């Protein structure tokens, strides 16, 4: 595939992420606008940080969810923090599932929280796959500087 075709693939993938509401175009574009010559891979850096931090927060959430008695206030705090990060990268579907989880926390519904956490993790993983694909396409299309 030549560079033009690859760049078209990148554009199509980006449109797909926005149209399918995986990413909020307004927020994602604002992250892209922070990129400059000194930080040409800023968006990928942020996404990498997000997934690294997600792993830490998921561990805390799971520990809190499977401890007895469940501290729903603490659970809500952890999910609030995770939801904040999802907003920062514009991860709409993940954020929406986080909101569902928080509703179950408010209702002190442990089973609901367990189910909601699974959905959060599913959307989180789906987005990860899409973003990894997107950044790989960008690299192949020569849109990313090697640092």
């Amino acid at each position: 595939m030549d560079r033009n075709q690859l760049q078209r693939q990148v554009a199509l993938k980006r449109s797909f992420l926005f149209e399918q509401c995986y990413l909020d175009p307004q927020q994602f574009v604002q992250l892209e606008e922070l990129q400059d010559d000194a930080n040409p891979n800023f968006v990928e850096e942020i996404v990498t940080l997000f997934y690294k931090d997600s792993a830490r927060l998921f561990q805390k959430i799971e520990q809190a969810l499977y401890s007895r008695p469940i501290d729903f206030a603490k659970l809500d705090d952890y999910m609030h923090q995770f939801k904040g990060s999802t907003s920062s990268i514009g991860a709409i579907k993940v954020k929406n599932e986080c909101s569902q989880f928080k509703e179950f926390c408010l209702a002190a519904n442990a089973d609901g929280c367990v189910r909601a956490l699974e959905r959060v993790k599913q959307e989180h993983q789906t987005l990860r796959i899409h973003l990894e694909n997107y950044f790989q396409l960008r690299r192949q299309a020569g849109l990313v500087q090697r640092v």
Partner: protein
Amino acid sequence: MLKSKNATTKMMALVVDDSIVNQRIHHKLLENFGIENQVVGNGKEAIDVHCSGKHFDLILMDMDMPVMNGIEATRMLRAMGIRSTIAGVSSHSSLSEDTKEFIEAGLDDYQEKPLTPAKLVSILHKVNLHV
């Protein structure tokens, strides 16, 4: 868009947030506006950095943080006589009770996350008024 206070003094900001994602975004956002900035991870670290003698024109303060949250940190900074512009930046709605308590602790401004360039410009206009 922004004026330095004078030819030799550059604006300094402090980012107070426990999220590494938001720390990085807010740091870069400020940097792109030409604002030197330091990052700390909770309210206590914000207090400590002031006790070490550092001064900031602007503090971007998150609300929910471990060790010491933004409400307590803001209250303490004001009690210490810190008159820097403190802008609360949190994902809580501006109408929530927690946000009202945050504002009453001594904020000069409050913006809901995610922080955007437009919201930062709005905050920075308040910093200029204090100069």
